[in-house]
């Protein structure tokens, strides 16, 4: 980072924060603070919904995920457009018709207070954990980039997000996200242009031959994380939960000027999400090709961690690993060039032999990377040995011209603030409406007090996220970590909403205990999978299983309980 980078960085961040704060400085009622106001346009909603889920993790972790495992992760999103159609046709009209502040208020109206609280609690647990993850990623990256201590960047990012959210509210988030998306895409396009200029000939073919372009896997294997089937079914239910029942999303689109605005905003996402994610994973696959030909490609991309431990007592073994990796890289380059030459000649026999040799070299290089991770663990058992989140940031810092580096770092901070603001806002809203108002009903009519409370809750959740990020580390790639947490806590919640919408004879007690039972089932499945890895199913499958279990348990419990008491809640039609 040189002075130009710093100038761009500070200018962009201050500009975005000032714009949002100035345009929303008169936010003074609960409706506006929590839902935005009812004149948010469809483009703003669409971009806002997209920006809420496209955090810094997306732009840094997703290329790294593709670098390591190819573009198969894109299948995670294939169920999303179908889910958004269902949200538009079913969920959104109901929320709008009822005029609710939070999705969980609807559960209270449809069922009872305990189901309302359960829905809100599941959301708060899940989103609270995710807030800790989303704050952790940009902080650790900033720590690498700026050379600051990790705990300081976590605190700095977290406090900035709290101030940004509390001073602006939902409308500020919406307003500034549109510009942040523009900046983000400007930076991403700049990175792509630089990458394309530096790629060798036949880069796409090389990525394909090295197994990085398998975007669709038709096998019905439940143990594989990403297949077309798991994406269609698991991804559908995951997206349905995310867009239909997660307050951080619901809050975006119930703030539309009309139902039409919310629907168009979601349809905007349904069309652009897969192409957007595809471009990002392709970027990762092409980064893999780029680093096959790059001299001094690091054996471990988290160089801060590597250097810290490589300068310790085991320096010699770290150096040996680096030397071995450099030698294998040279051999691999020769083999890739041999394969390209053979395929250009159209010599099928030579091409097949060269391909096998190239893949063997790739596997040897990967084995050395594993050895490097073992060495890190040996030097420090608490060392972070997952480096895929550092691939893109390494490219940015070493390959982009100065000025662009500052811009992209600004983009990361802006994107982190966006997703953090949306999350904290949703957590603050839900805590106020679904907990505070319920336990302090006499205070409910005081709207100014509710706004103050919402801001306090927002700040408290921000502090929780900071604390979580300071004390928790992750074994998974961060973007997968977010999806795994969602897949554990969403399914039961989605099941409750499905019962609410489609099974009108099921009452509050039945669905409440069904949700508890299905949540326990999902937790058991997840942790049993961790204890017995040979039986572990891909996490996306937890979504349809948990949701279906909640629906089936609800029907069974309702049959046991009967139609007495609170069995028949207020139906959608009567609302």
């Amino acid at each position, binding site marked *: 980072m040189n002075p130009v980078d710093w100038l761009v960085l500070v200018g962009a961040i201050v500009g975005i924060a000032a714009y949002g704060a100035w345009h929303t400085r008169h936010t003074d*009622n609960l*409706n506006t603070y929590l839902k935005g106001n*009812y004149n948010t346009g469809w483009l703003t909603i669409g971009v806002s919904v997209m920006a809420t889920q496209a955090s810094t993790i997306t732009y840094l972790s997703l290329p790294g995920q593709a670098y390591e495992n190819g573009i198969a992760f*894109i*299948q995670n999103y*294939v169920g999303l*457009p*179908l889910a*958004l*159609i269902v949200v*538009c*046709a079913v969920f959104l*009209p109901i929320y*709008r*018709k009822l*005029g609710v502040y939070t999705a969980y208020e609807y559960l209270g109206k449809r069922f009872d207070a305990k189901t309302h609280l359960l829905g809100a609690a599941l959301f708060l647990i899940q989103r609270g954990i995710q807030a800790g993850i989303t704050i952790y990623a940009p902080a650790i990256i900033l720590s690498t980039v700026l050379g600051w201590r990790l705990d300081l960047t976590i605190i700095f990012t977290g406090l900035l997000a709290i101030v940004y959210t509390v001073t602006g509210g939902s409308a500020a988030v919406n307003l500034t996200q549109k510009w942040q998306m523009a900046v983000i895409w400007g930076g991403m396009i700049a990175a792509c242009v630089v990458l394309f200029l530096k790629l060798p000939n036949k880069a*796409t*073919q090389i*990525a*394909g*031959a090295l197994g990085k*372009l*398998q*975007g*669709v*896997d038709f096998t019905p294997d439940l143990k594989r994380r990403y297949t*077309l089937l798991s994406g269609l079914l698991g991804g559908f239910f995951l997206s349905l939960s995310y867009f239909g029942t997660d307050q951080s999303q619901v809050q975006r689109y*119930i703030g539309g000027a*009309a*139902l*039409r605005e919310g*629907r*168009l905003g979601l*349809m905007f996402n*349904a*069309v652009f999400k*897969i*192409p957007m994610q*595809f471009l990002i994973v392709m970027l990762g696959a092409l980064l893999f090709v780029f680093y096959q030909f790059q001299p001094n490609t690091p054996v471990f991309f988290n160089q801060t961690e590597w250097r810290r431990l490589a300068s310790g007592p085991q320096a010699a073994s770290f150096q040996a690993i680096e030397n071995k990796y450099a030698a294998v890289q040279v051999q691999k380059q020769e083999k890739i060039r041999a394969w390209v030459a053979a395929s250009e000649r159209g010599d099928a026999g030579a091409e097949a032999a060269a391909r096998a040799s190239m893949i063997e070299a790739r596997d040897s290089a990967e084995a050395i990377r594993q050895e490097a991770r073992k060495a890190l663990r040996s030097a420090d058992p608490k060392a972070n040995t997952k480096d895929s989140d550092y691939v893109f940031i390494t490219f940015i810092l070493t390959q982009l011209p100065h000025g662009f580096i500052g811009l992209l770092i600004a983009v990361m901070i802006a994107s982190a603030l966006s997703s953090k603001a949306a999350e904290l806002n949703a957590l603050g809203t839900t805590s106020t409406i679904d907990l505070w108002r319920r336990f302090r009903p006499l205070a409910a009519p005081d709207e100014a007090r509710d706004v103050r409370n919402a801001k306090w809750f927002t700040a408290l959740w921000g502090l929780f996220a900071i604390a979580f990020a300071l004390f928790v580390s992750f074994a998974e790639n961060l973007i997968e970590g977010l999806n795994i947490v969602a897949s554990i806590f969403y399914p039961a919640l989605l099941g409750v909403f499905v019962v609410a919408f489609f099974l009108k004879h099921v009452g509050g007690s039945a669905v409440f205990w069904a949700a508890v039972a299905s949540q326990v089932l999902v937790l058991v499945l997840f942790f049993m999978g961790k204890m017995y890895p040979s039986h572990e199913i891909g996490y996306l499958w937890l979504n349809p299983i948990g949701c279906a279990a909640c629906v089936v348990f609800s029907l069974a419990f309702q049959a046991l309980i009967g139609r007495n008491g609170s069995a028949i809640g207020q139906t959608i039609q009567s609302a």
Partner: protein
Amino acid sequence: MKPPAAPEEHDPPGVPGFRTWRGVYVFVFLFFVLCVALLALLSRAFA
């Protein structure tokens, strides 16, 4: 402040080329099918 009343559910999408929401949903579905087909083609082409 309460949101606008119920009839908005039947409001047309107001997007050129689409008279009903069903038309918008069909378009999104077809676009989804196209995306999956292109992904499958890409995977096959670079297998």
